[in-house]
């Protein structure tokens, strides 16, 4: 399999802020001794370098679909393992320098997957809708005292979210104990025919990226369903957001 290594390695060292960095001991593949390596976690990729100053990573571990467990090691204290579901998968054994570091890494790695991030986003989107709905209905009722919309908590566990396939419309439960009422889509800000600069590498001037336009329902509470990537509603999306995105971009460019 070919990976776009140069690009991926560039992602490791470009100036977008990493999610976590630090030294860890990593058990070698052939040479089973533990080697001290510098680790950089960005998104769902864990890069490791020979030294902190090294310009290129020795390797990367894609964390999608992994589980992270504490493990017993004969030689190392504070050891943990990154495991995958697939047949003959390699187990990555690592060790931290102290208890706090180990716990911190285990937490960070087990929540690093794209799938996990997507689940959290969907949940927050649902909560925001609820909050907005409460605010709308309380305004309609015109209550005399101030109404505090409550955030409804869903019972779900965010430990070690394992990939069970990307979210699909109508999925209502998952193996890891997460359950959702209605999956909804994420807003985007792409307008037709224009060039959209991905700014994941960040800019050196500290300018904030443009805000993502919020999802909106059409006026009059029509029963139109939320747009989703699978239903080809891009032209609708374009209409709804195109104007706002164009305005936002102009605003943002002018503020730079």
């Amino acid at each position, binding site marked *: *399999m*070919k*990976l*776009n*290594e*140069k*690009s*991926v390695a560039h*992602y490791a060292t470009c100036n977008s*802020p990493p*999610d976590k960095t630090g030294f860890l001991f990593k058990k070698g593949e052939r040479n089973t001794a533990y080697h001290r390596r510098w680790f950089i976690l960005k998104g*769902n990729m864990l890069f490791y370098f020979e030294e902190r100053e090294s310009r290129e*990573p*020795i*390797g*990367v571990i*894609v964390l*999608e*679909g992994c589980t992270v467990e504490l493990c017993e090691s004969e030689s190392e204290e504070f050891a943990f393992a990154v495991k*995958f579901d*697939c047949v*003959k*998968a*390699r187990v990555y054994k690592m060790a931290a320098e102290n208890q706090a570091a180990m716990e911190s890494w285990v*937490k*960070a790695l087990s*929540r690093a997957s*794209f799938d996990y*991030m997507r689940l*959290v*986003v969907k949940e*927050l989107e649902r*909560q*925001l809708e609820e909050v907005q709905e409460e605010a709308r209905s309380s305004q309609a009722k015109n209550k005399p005292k101030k109404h505090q919309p*409550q*955030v409804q908590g869903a019972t779900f566990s*965010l430990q070690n979210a394992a*990939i069970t*396939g*990307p979210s*699909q419309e109508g999925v209502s439960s998952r193996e890891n104990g997460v359950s959702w009422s209605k999956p909804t889509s994420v807003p*985007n800000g*792409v307008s*037709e*025919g224009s*060039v*959209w*600069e*991905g*700014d*994941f590498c*960040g800019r050196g001037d*500290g300018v904030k*990226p443009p805000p*993502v336009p919020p999802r909106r329902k059409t006026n009059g509470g029509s029963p139109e369903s939320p747009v989703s*990537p*699978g239903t*080809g509603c*891009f*032209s609708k999306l374009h209409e709804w957001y195109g104007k706002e995105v164009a305005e936002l971009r102009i605003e943002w460019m002018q503020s730079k």
Partner: protein
Amino acid sequence: MRFNEKELVFLSRQPPERAAELGMRGPKKGDVVKRRLVKLIVNFLFYFRTDEDEVSVNQSQWHRYHYCYRYLFLDEAERKYLFECDSQEQCEEWIDAVVKASYEFMRKNLIYYRTEIHRLTGKDPLEQYGISDETRFQVNSGLPPPPT
């Protein structure tokens, strides 16, 4: 650079967000458009040779993306890819999917929702899940570090 290939191959066989046979032209000079089975799974774009099982993958962190009619242009820092779709509609669906298949895009959405909910309710929605301190969910995430 080493990478966990077996796990990526396994990932390439999971249900995709989007998959289609598209024309694809690679970044090298002299590359021509070839038919490839293209699959978008989480933030990876896998492409399979239609006659063989061989698969390549690009981690989906495009520097630039734009489209024109039914052609989708995805650029890495120095390399440009072209995808030829069957229709403008299909092209629009793909760019929509590719935009959303970005970790940073997801993160920005999360921060947006978190901030909004906090603004409207005074409560941090991540607190009840014990993840409000995670670096990756901080409101100033995604920005470059201040110059030293």
